[in-house]
């Protein structure tokens, strides 16, 4: 309103300032700066980090985290957590493998059943959250513990060990492996198919967030749930959908886990949920919701991949990985907070 009286000169100054402000307001800015720094660091510190084969290893490591970081980031923008995301990946793989083996069915049937079961677990998380109005931390901590127990319990009950039986000789295995765990040769460099899944998910999630009504609703339920409800946004439906999105990511990751080998270790996945959350936060997602991006989560995952593999290439003790991770998380969060404050400062 002040612009009416302020006149032209001030307005023009504001336009120039806001171009820089817009760049600073990008949620992924901090993570991009961080990723560049880590890249340059390992390019000097680790021999062979810049070789194409090394970079493809880094990308593969990043993609396995990135596939989950994308839906986890969307969920975080929507204002919620999912602590069950890590073990849900294992559950999804177990259901697929055990169903195919026990029913002597085509592996694709198991893959389909696994999709339904995994989505149902995601929907359960969302339904419990919106119905009970308890914090998602508690709800998904409960699901996390239950799934961890069920993964081990059912596997021991059915297979008598902690890993499932091999399904390598079952019908449909080669084609399922091609879809979820193949390697494509691009000019002599091995590109894992998970990288394509990852890029596809980032593109899809960005489209949803920025160009669809659903995306508008995700930002709104995370930014101010009551305001969103008051203008008619279906808050419960949006949140349940976000949890099902995480489940969908867990399904892809789970099938990759299974078809990379031919059996699944039932104790895997514990702790990974935090890695996904960290990737999303490093990528600029606001932990309280309402702000963030899918691309940012991808950069967060890439930072992860570079650090975990870079330490190996530099031949350091991998114990230091966690230290770097923690330091990066703190730095990224501080940088994001600072950037946001600058971006939102009024006049």
């Amino acid at each position, binding site marked *: *309103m002040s612009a009416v009286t302020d006149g032209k000169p001030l307005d023009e100054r504001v336009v120039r300032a806001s171009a820089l402000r817009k760049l600073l307001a990008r949620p992924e800015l901090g993570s991009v700066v961080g990723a560049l720094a880590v890249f340059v660091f390992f390019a000097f510190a680790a021999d062979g980090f810049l070789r194409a084969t090394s970079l493809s290893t880094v990308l593969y490591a990043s993609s396995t985290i990135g596939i989950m970081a994308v839906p986890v980031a969307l969920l975080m923008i929507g204002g919620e957590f999912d602590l069950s995301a890590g073990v849900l990946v294992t559950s999804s793989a177990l259901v697929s493998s055990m169903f195919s083996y026990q029913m002597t069915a085509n592996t694709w049937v198991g893959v389909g059943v696994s999709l339904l079961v995994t989505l149902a677990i995601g929907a359960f998380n969302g339904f419990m959250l919106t119905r009970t109005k308890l914090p998602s931390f508690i709800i998904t901590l409960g699901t996390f513990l239950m799934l961890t127990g069920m993964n081990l319990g059912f596997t021991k009950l059915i297979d008598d060990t902690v890993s499932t039986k091999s399904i390598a000789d079952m019908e449909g295995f080669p084609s399922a492996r091609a879809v979820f765990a193949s390697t494509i040769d691009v000019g002599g460099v091995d590109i894992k198919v998970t990288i394509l899944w990852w890029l596809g998910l980032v593109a899809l999630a960005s489209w949803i967030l920025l160009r669809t009504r659903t995306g508008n609703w995700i930002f709104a339920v995370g930014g101010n749930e009551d*305001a969103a409800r008051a203008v008619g946004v279906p808050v419960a439906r949006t949140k349940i959908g976000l949890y099902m999105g995480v489940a969908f990511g867990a399904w892809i990751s789970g099938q990759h886990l299974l078809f990379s080998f031919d059996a699944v270790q039932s104790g895997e996945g514990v702790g990974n949920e935090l890695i996904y959350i960290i990737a999303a936060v490093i990528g600029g997602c606001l932990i309280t919701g309402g702000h963030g991006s899918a691309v940012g989560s991808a950069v967060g995952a890439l930072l992860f991949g570079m650090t975990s593999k870079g330490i190996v290439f530099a031949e350091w003790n991998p114990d230091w990985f966690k230290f770097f991770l923690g330091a990066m998380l703190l730095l990224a969060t501080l940088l994001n907070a600072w950037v946001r404050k600058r971006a939102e400062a009024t006049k």
Partner: protein
Amino acid sequence: MTLVELTDVSKRYGTVRALEGVSLEVHAGEITCVLGDNGAGKSTLIKIVAGLHRHDGGTLRVEGEETTLSSPREALDRGIATVYQDLAVVPLMPVWRNFFLGSEPRKGAGPFKRLDTDFMRRTTREALLRMGIDLRDVDQPIGTLSGGERQCVAIARAVHFGAKVLVLDEPTAALGVKQSGVVLKYVAAARDEGLGVVLITHNPHHAYLVGDRFVLLRRGTMVGHYTRDDITLDELTQQMAGGSDLDALRHELQRG
């Protein structure tokens, strides 16, 4: 024309009687003020009209038809838009996304159905301009606007989406004198567009500046129902607060 009419409406929360025997009329092109101190039942009343809570007793008529509003969506579909003092907007979202939140226009078909972002940006700017609000940048997060500006955007939004009744919850409560004046100006602008306005406030001075009808609440019951001709500002103030509170109120009036 009577847009909304409440007759003898009551509401209980468990054993607590939040509202008892309240009647209210909202006419097109008029401002009905609901006055009361904290805890008088203003919020409960607003929630019934906005569709957040259902009333237990009495009747609610929207354009002559007796009804119960069961959700904010239903209230909106019937042309009743509510602007809340504290939860009107999503602070981190750009102005244009806030403006269309919950009623997003889309183009394209099937999986390529997408937000019509150009239309949304342009329309936001135009709708705000029509209400006399000139924003430099509709892409800025709405949280960067002042409290008064945010209220104005919310009012412009309701007008744009064809609301017939605009319910305003303490639009001036958290604002300074100047900002309050600006907001009241836009409230009057909405009235001039032919909307029926319900203005909830605890400030009789603000109410008397723009109001056509006045409903006074105290401890959940209606203590008075006047048109502008029936009452003066002094009487309104007297009615609203008992004698002991009057000094404090006079102090408030002097500043307002």
